[in-house]
């Protein structure tokens, strides 16, 4: 099981904005207890999905070399609840990004209806010298491909977004390594 709280990107403009969708399904275990007779997508997991949308938007600016972590939920206002069968659209806008962090505003919509408004701060972990990666580059790249980032992504100059070269190299290296499974 992977901690995926978005299903795919539908728009992505490098350093500017990103849109991702999350389809809520009764097949998700957590909805069976939250709540037993009224399955509701937990607000916290909506925020997590928005953070994944905004966090990848922030990470891409520095070619995913910074270790981006959600540092603060500055604002989270929910106007309603999401239920199985709903398709949530998370729209994240980059307000500001710099070497030590990023500030993102986002919304969640169910169809055309505003569902939530969220403001998030991401920090770039500074202890880079310790060489602890949050993700292996090849794993991260496969995740980004799964999410369709490179199908819809646009680089700053409007051309299709390409994975950073070091990630492609890591992916090639991985295919050369015999599988242990």
């Amino acid at each position: 099981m992977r901690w995926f709280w978005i299903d795919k990107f539908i728009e992505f403009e490098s350093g500017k904005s990103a849109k991702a969708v999350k389809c809520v399904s009764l097949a998700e275990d957590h909805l069976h207890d939250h709540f037993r007779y009224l399955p509701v997508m937990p607000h916290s997991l909506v925020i997590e999905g928005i953070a994944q949308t905004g966090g990848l938007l922030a990470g891409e600016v520095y070619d995913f070399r910074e270790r981006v972590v959600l540092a603060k939920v500055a604002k989270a206002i929910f106007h309603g609840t999401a239920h199985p069968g709903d398709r949530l659209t998370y729209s994240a806008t980059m307000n500001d990004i710099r070497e030590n962090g990023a500030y993102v505003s986002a919304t969640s919509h169910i169809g055309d209806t505003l569902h939530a408004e969220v403001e998030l701060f991401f920090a770039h972990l500074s202890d880079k010298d310790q060489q602890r990666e949050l993700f292996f580059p090849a794993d991260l790249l496969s995740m980004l491909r799964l999410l369709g980032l490179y199908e819809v992504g646009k680089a700053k100059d409007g051309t299709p977004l390409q994975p950073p070269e070091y990630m492609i190299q890591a992916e090639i290296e991985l295919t050369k390594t015999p599988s242990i499974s």
Partner: protein
Amino acid sequence: MAPSDDEVFEKVREALVDALGVDEEEVVPEATMVGDLGAESIDFLDIVFRLEKAFDITIPRDELFPEDILTNAEYVQDGKVTAEGLAELKKRMPFADLTKFEANPVVTDFGNLLTVNDMCSYVKSKLS
């Protein structure tokens, strides 16, 4: 035209209310950022973004909160800021009143020094 002291205070107050989730009444000039308003280190990044937007200024990293000095072994010994460190802090933070801190410069107390008034002085120094 540069904004008046009251205008600066009002905008700083708005930024702090939004960033820290405190009530307007709590944000008074003498309130300390960490002790009274509960600011944590990540909040300073939030505050920096909001002040930049509100005043159309640029705040370089570590200028408002010089973490680099406080974590530099050259300027800190046995948990206290050295004389050189204090000189560096004063140079970097002309907007802050460091008199109290100088008497007992324990690093962990530093965060409790900055007041709302210091934030306003800082903004004014950037605007002038």
